[in-house]
């Protein structure tokens, strides 16, 4: 059975519906899956999450969460999903323990009842349980928010950009926690603007301007990148990029870390690229083959 079913969801904002946040979105998430929604800011991730958590009504389309309709059965859904908004949304003037206790009680449960589920997360912030939530560090706030979203043992967990604004170590820890939760059988939908996090999901949907560009496993998305990809570097990066884009054999070129990634139109054009680099040799240019990752795929899909 699918934990989440989204069918042709359209959501617009403004009096004349001039802003389209979600443009005919459809996808399914199966039970126990860790599903990533990857896209830049303004792609429509938050709108989608708010529709699925019954906070917003879609203009048209249908969505089911855990077998319940998001419009008709919103009360049932609110009892069984966990939601962690993108912005820190706990009470800063309540302590860590008071926040957790409050959310446990309004879901008619107690910390004790579901402690096993949050234990591996909560033990990390338990030493600070008397500290006010507003005085926690960014990473600790996320852990507390996740504990609060989990305290009633939800069947589906919605995490809206949980790692935005969190340091690299905490981000890694956070994804470790999600893996542990997945083992408990909880379906997790997580959105993120970071392409490198896509590889940690079971399946991802790449979303841009309210449209889904592709839904696949991270592996499948990378494999679908069929064109040859090269990485080049020289001492004059900016002119190099401009010149590359003017070449006929180059499909696309864009900065990628310390390199420029060059997408070739055809495998057979390799000598042309080598010749091009040869001409730039006085700028100590470097050319090497590159393995595409999600970001390359995203850029390629965006261009189409």
């Amino acid at each position: 059975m699918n934990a989440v079913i989204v069918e042709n969801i359209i959501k617009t904002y403004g009096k004349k519906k001039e802003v389209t946040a979600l443009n005919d979105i459809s996808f399914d998430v199966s039970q126990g899956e860790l599903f990533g929604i990857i896209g830049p800011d303004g792609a429509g991730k938050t709108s989608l999450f708010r529709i699925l958590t019954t906070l917003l009504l879609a203009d048209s389309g249908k969505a089911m969460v855990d077998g319940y309709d998001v419009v008709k059965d919103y009360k049932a859904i609110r009892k069984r999903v966990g939601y962690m908004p993108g912005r820190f949304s706990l009470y800063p003037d309540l302590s860590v323990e008071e926040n957790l206790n409050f959310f446990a009680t309004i879901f008619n449960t107690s910390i004790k009842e579901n402690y096993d589920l949050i234990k591996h997360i909560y033990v990390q912030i338990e030493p600070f349980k008397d500290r006010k939530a507003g005085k926690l560090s960014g990473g600790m706030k996320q852990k507390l928010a996740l504990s609060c979203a989990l305290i009633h043992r939800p069947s589906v967990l919605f995490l809206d950009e949980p790692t935005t604004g969190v340091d690299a170590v905490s981000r890694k820890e956070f994804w470790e926690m999600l893996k542990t939760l997945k083992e408990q059988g909880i379906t997790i939908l997580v959105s993120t603007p970071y392409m490198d996090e896509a590889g940690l999901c079971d399946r991802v949907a790449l979303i841009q301007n309210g449209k889904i560009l592709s839904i696949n496993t991270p592996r499948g998305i990378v494999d679908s990148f069929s064109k040859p990809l090269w990485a080049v570097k020289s001492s004059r990066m900016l002119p190099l990029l401009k010149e590359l884009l003017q070449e006929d054999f180059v499909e696309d070129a864009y900065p990628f870390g310390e390199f420029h990634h060059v997408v070739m139109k055809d495998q057979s054009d390799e000598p042309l690229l080598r010749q091009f680099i040869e001409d730039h040799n006085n700028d100590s240019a470097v050319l090497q083959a590159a393995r595409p990752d999600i970001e390359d795929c995203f850029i390629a899909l965006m261009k189409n």
Partner: protein
Amino acid sequence: MKRRFPLSIFNFQFFAFVKKEFFHIWRDKRTMFILLGMPVVQIVIFGYALTNEVKNANIAILDNSKDAATASLTTQLDASRYFALEKNIVTYKQIEEEFRKGKIKLAIVFPQHFGEDLQHFNKAQVQIIADAADPNTANQLANYATAIISDYQDRVTNDRRLPYTIDTEMRMLYNPQLKGAFNFVPGVMAMVLLLVCTMMTAITIVKEKEMGTMEVMLVSPMRPQMVVIAKAVPYLLLSTINITSILLLSVFALELPINGSLALLGFESILFTLVSLSLGLLISARAASQQTAMFISLVALFLPTIMLSGFMFPVENMPLPLRIISNIVPAKWYYSIVKSVMIKGLGIAGVWKETLILAGMMTFFLTMAIKRFKIRLA
């Protein structure tokens, strides 16, 4: 599994919510201090500083007669608590100069032969000149002066029989000393309760929207009516403390009597508190930001309460449209109830109409607040 009462609002969720609200108030010490200190400060300020009673107004006397009668009258005027003799002047022209300088509020002119005329012709004249730039004060001062003078006349004519006299005898019912406190304590009570309850509750739900906590709370089994009512409980308690401190202060510091039943006064005050709370919750359920909520409570509630409740300006003297509008100001009814119960000592039989109106208002606002509570974000 433990059995709970999903339909009742009085369950664990409700108490957890109320507890959380108490934490919010308790931990914001500055706001709490203002909420509890404000009524005390207001009562003290209104009681001792801001008053429209006239005390020790400066007067000047132009005595052209200089006899025993004028000397005696001058002493009596100066001795009264309303007047203080600023200056004895000698020419008529000086009077205007003194008024212009703003030194005096009232001038009294005795003509030549004042005492003689009084003795021989049974009739004498005295002129009272008041600074009517402030008409109310001028009127009051002139009346006080007249009263003192006629008092003197009574004593002079005591042993003689006048052919015809009408004695007017005044009794100031309920407030024999004409204390201003009788008027402003009920007004301050209405104002403080409205401020604490309406403004604070108006802000409280909106604050959760702004902080984003509403978003999390909506995705939970919490019922709207539970959220709304739980928000009101702590402020109800806070208001009870305020009502108590206002009453204690007015009885012991301002020596105001509570002529009616204290229980009835308490009941009516709690009823008015509930009206204010419901109104605040209604504003809160609709307003999008804390500023909007504050603005609405100030403009739409606070000002009408001061202007139209009868506390500052008598409603009876207003033009018809304002008199009609004043009926929808809850404070007007409460103000009238407090005056009736506290000062006149009336029982429920005397205020049942006002009580019913307040109860109706409360039901209406609370129902609207719960109905209008948004179960989604937009």
